[in-house]
Every structure is written in structure tokens, then in C-alpha cells.
């Protein structure tokens, strides 16, 4: 069913009793053209674009829990394309352009809100680095504005501008950045894929792969073996665990990132603001809660929960930037497992196994990449060659020395 104002009115008049489930619950077939492992944002968008853009509809998405039970449902929902490296900027801008037309494209309300992303700077050196990044973005046709303190004061008068240690000098503003409703993004892609014939198979864990003579033949799952011509793995924080079954060792460590939400407040913060000291970013959800986060806890973890020192650190950063939030009570906090690569950038590539494709390494920043990641992964799987904006995301770049180290911190995943 296509959603429209008319469908809402008609269903309301019949007491909302006639809405249909948004996707089917099919049994796995014996064989598919393509199996996607992982029903998170990237797996679902890959299936959607495979069907919609590349005409491959005999596809299954195999998810061990329920759709969207991983990081797609755990992130702080920030969408932006303010990356500075040549291999990254065009990819994230392609993603932002897809975001801009996404709701019309998949006919679902993802609450995409281009409310602006402002990264603050606090020293001359930081200003110069931001100016450079803004210029690199503009050279690629991406919007970026370097704004001074007076302009920031007008936008957010309640920030602590004259903080003795970290005064706010200005910021790099991307007005086209913003937030989207994370769950709805997963649901919109799931519905769009299902309606084009993709089987979404939940509660089905991939436990191994059938590989014969270096050629992929099928996936072993808790609901039996499913044959396929090709497989695309997009399991985010579980990448090492899943790929371990192929014997491939990867440049990845799994780390935990926490996020927080306060009780609902009246409208207070209409954009996304990030503090240039350590790492702190905050926005206000449409329900009114302040959604914020900071750095990784910093040690390898698969626990989906973090520890108290990082909670204290994040709250301290929040208080230094925005003392007014000190009286807001935190409602919930949670953690997600991040697939941190050695250079902080993702991988979308073939593997040494024929018919076996890998999408991983999204670190703490893969939500904004959801549309482009799916589009480029579908392109790679369908055409067996990388999409032009994703050519830098090769698996062998670590060995060859072509690292994409946006943070310039070296092969130390917890610092990216």
C-alpha cells in the first residue's frame, strides 16, 4: 500500500483497523540470487537498492534478531557530509543527496530534518583545521560555512562562550546536515525491499558459509542452509565474529559507544551542536529529549553496554558547553558495538572468496552513510565493480598503505 494523505484519512474513518502489516514474514527459500547477512540499516538499504536500482529481486536479508535491532536503532541519528579527505567527501555527499530525496523515494516518513550541524572550535589551530576542511568540502560542491563567535551567539545564546579553558571562537556549519528518525529509516528500507519481492528473514542467525574451492555457495543458518550465487555481509559490530567463519582476519576491533537521552523538554536546541573539546555532540529529538553522546569507552568490547567513567566524561563535557542542561535528568543510556577499523574509515569490497562481498568498518559514523552504503554495496554486488564514489573503501588499502585516516591518529582504533 502506498502511504498518502488520503490513505491516512480513509484508515482513520474506518477506525484504523484496516492497516496491513508493513512487510511479509516469509519462510526462507532453498536458493536466492543474493543473500544479505544483517538486517540493519546497511543490509536493508543494500537489498532495497539491489531490487530498485539494479533489478535483482530474488534476494533474502537474513537477520539474527529482529530488523533494526542493532546499531541502526541505537545511534544518535546525526546525518552530515562534512568530511575532509578526497576518498570520503564525495561518498558522504552522495549519501546526503540520497537522504534529501529518501522519503519520496521509499514513500515512508523518516523524519529527515536538515536542521544544521555546527562543529565548534576553541583555538586558532582548531579554526584553521576547520577552515581547511570547509574549503575541501566546498571544492567538492558540499555546503560549508565558517561562522564566527557573534554568529554562534545568535544561534545558541546559552552556550558557555567565555569558558576559561575552552572559549568558543566560532564553528564550521553545515546547514544541510541534521537528523533523521533511525528506526523509521530501517523500516522504510525494509518495506521498500519487501514490496519489491525481497524476503526479510528474521530470527535467523548465520552460523557459517558453504565455500567450495574458493567459491561461495551458500549460508548456513539456524533455519537451515540457504543456497545463493552471491552473499553480502553487512553485520557492523559483529563483522569479525561472522567473517571468522571464512578464516579472513580483518583490520577491525569491536568497541562500545554509549549514548544518552534526557526527559522530554520544551523546544530548546533546534540544530546539532558538537563541542570541539574531546568529543561531545547533542541535538533535541522531536519528542523533546536531548540526545547526546561522546567518545568510545576505549577498550575492545562486545557487551553492548559501557562503563561509568565515560558517562561522567560525557556529562562533564556537556556541562562545560551548555551549563543550562545540568538540571535535565537522564532518562536512558545504552551502548552499541562498533566495528572500528585501523584507519577509522569503512570497507566496501570484494573478498578473496568468489561471490563473497563485505561491507563493514562503519565505526561510530555509519548512520549517515546508510543510503550511500547500501547503494554502493548493491552496485558492487550487481556489477562486480565499485561505485565511483566508493573506490577508496578497499580492503587491501591497509596492506598497500592507502589509508583514509580522517582523524590522523594512526592504527589505533579507539582514537578514531
Amino acid at each position, binding site marked *: 500500500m502506498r502511504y498518502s494523505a488520503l490513505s491516512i484519512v480513509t484508515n482513520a474513518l474506518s477506525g484504523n483497523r484496516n492497516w496491513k502489516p508493513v512487510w511479509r514474514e516469509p519462510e526462507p527459500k532453498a536458493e536466492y540470487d543474493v543473500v544479505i547477512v544483517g538486517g540493519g540499516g546497511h543490509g536493508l538499504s543494500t537489498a532495497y537498492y539491489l531490487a530498485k536500482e539494479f533489478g535483482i529481486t530474488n534476494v533474502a536479508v537474513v537477520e539474527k534478531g529482529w530488523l533494526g535491532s542493532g546499531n541502526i536503532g541505537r545511534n544518535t541519528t546525526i546525518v552530515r557530509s562534512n568530511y575532509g579527505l578526497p576518498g570520503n567527501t564525495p561518498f558522504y555527499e552522495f549519501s546526503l543527496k540520497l537522504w534529501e530525496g529518501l522519503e519520496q523515494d521509499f514513500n515512508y516518513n523518516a523524519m529527515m530534518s536538515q536542521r544544521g550541524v555546527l562543529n565548534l572550535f576553541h583555538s586558532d589551530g582548531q579554526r584553521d583545521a576547520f577552515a581547511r576542511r570547509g574549503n575541501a568540502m566546498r571544492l567538492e560542491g558540499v555546503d560549508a560555512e565558517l561562522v564566527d563567535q557573534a554568529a554562534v551567539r545568535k544561534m545558541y545564546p546559552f552556550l558557555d562562550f567565555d569558558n576559561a579553558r575552552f572559549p568558543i571562537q566560532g564553528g564550521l556549519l553545515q546547514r544541510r546536515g541534521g537528523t533523521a528518525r533511525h528506526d523509521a529509516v530501517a523500516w522504510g528500507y525494509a518495506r521498500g525491499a519487501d514490496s519489491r519481492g525481497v524476503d526479510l528473514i528474521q530470527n535467523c542467525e548465520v552460523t557459517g558459509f558453504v565455500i567450495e574451492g574458493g567459491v561461495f555457495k551458500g549460508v548456513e543458518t539456524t533455519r537451515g542452509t540457504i543456497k545463493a550465487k552471491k552473499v553480502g555481509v553487512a553485520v557492523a559490530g559483529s563483522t*569479525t*565474529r561472522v567473517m571468522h567463519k571464512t578464516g579472513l*582476519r*580483518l*583490520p*577491525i*576491533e*569491536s568497541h562500545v559507544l554509549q549514548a544518552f537521552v534526557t526527559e522530554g523538554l520544551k523546544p530548546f536546541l533546534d540544530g546539532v551542536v558538537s563541542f570541539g573539546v574531546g568529543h561531545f555532540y547533542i541535538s533535541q529529538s522531536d519528542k523533546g529529549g536531548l540526545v547526546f553522546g561522546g567518545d568510545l569507552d*576505549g*577498550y*575492545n*568490547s*562486545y*557487551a553492548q553496554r559501557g*562503563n561509568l*567513567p565515560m558517562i*561522567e566524561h560525557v556529562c562533564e563535557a556537556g556541562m562545560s558547553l551548555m551549563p543550562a542542561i545540568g538540571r535535565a535528568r537522564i532518562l536512558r543510556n545504552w551502548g552499541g558495538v562498533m566495528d572500528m577499523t*585501523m584507519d577509522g574509515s569503512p570497507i566496501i569490497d570484494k573478498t578473496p572468496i568468489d561471490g563473497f562481498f563485505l561491507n563493514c568498518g562503519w565505526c561510530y559514523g555509519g548512520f549517515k552513510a546508510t543510503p550511500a552504503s547500501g547503494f554502493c554495496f548493491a552496485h558492487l554486488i550487481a556489477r562486480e565493480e565499485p561505485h565511483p564514489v566508493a573506490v577508496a573503501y578497499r580492503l587491501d588499502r*591497509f*596492506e598497500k598503505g592507502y589509508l583514509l585516516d580522517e582523524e590522523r591518529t594512526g*592504527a*589505533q*582504533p*579507539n582514537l578514531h
Partner: protein
Amino acid sequence: MRLPCPLCGERDSGEFTYRGDATVVRPDPASPGAKEAFHAFVHLRDNPAGWHKEHWYHSDGCRSWIVVERNTLTHEVRGAVTAAAHTLARREAASGGKSSDDGSNEAPEADA
């Protein structure tokens, strides 16, 4: 999370700085295949879901490097030794001497 520093006793994890997997061994640059070995040493990790031997630096304490054995699924800590003791145990094991230091996340080397 609290870490048992072999020199200071059990301390809050906030006093420590994390380095990562303590089992990767720096290759000999003169050895054949050193190029591939260095790639593996710098970039590739077992990243186990379970017990993990890892380097921590007691930066807000005695400033020793230690090797902690911690479960990445539960954050449970099983023990810690100084990085020096860890290296000695590895060398002993490598030269055929007896060592109690084995397990999945194995072959420790601390002089990284």
C-alpha cells in the same frame, strides 16, 4: 570496571589508558616476509568475543604497562601481570621452557 594493577592493587579503570591486543608480536624487520608480517602486526586483529589479553598503561598510577586478561563479552577481569613478566613468559614458552601462559588469545609480546 576495575583493573588489578600488579603493583598498585585493584583500581578504577579510569586511571588507565588502553593500548590494545597484547598478543601481536613485532616482527623482525630482517626476516623474510617481514612486509606482510608488519602489515599483520600493525593492522590485523583476532578481535575475540571472549577472553582478550590487552595492554593497559597505569597513567594515573604507577605508570607501568600491564597486560590484563578481560572478557570482551562481559567485561569480567581474570587477572593482570606486568608487561615485562608477560614478555618473559612468552620468551620462555618460545624457547621451549615451561610457561603457564597460553590460551586462545596467545603468544604475547610486550616490546611493541
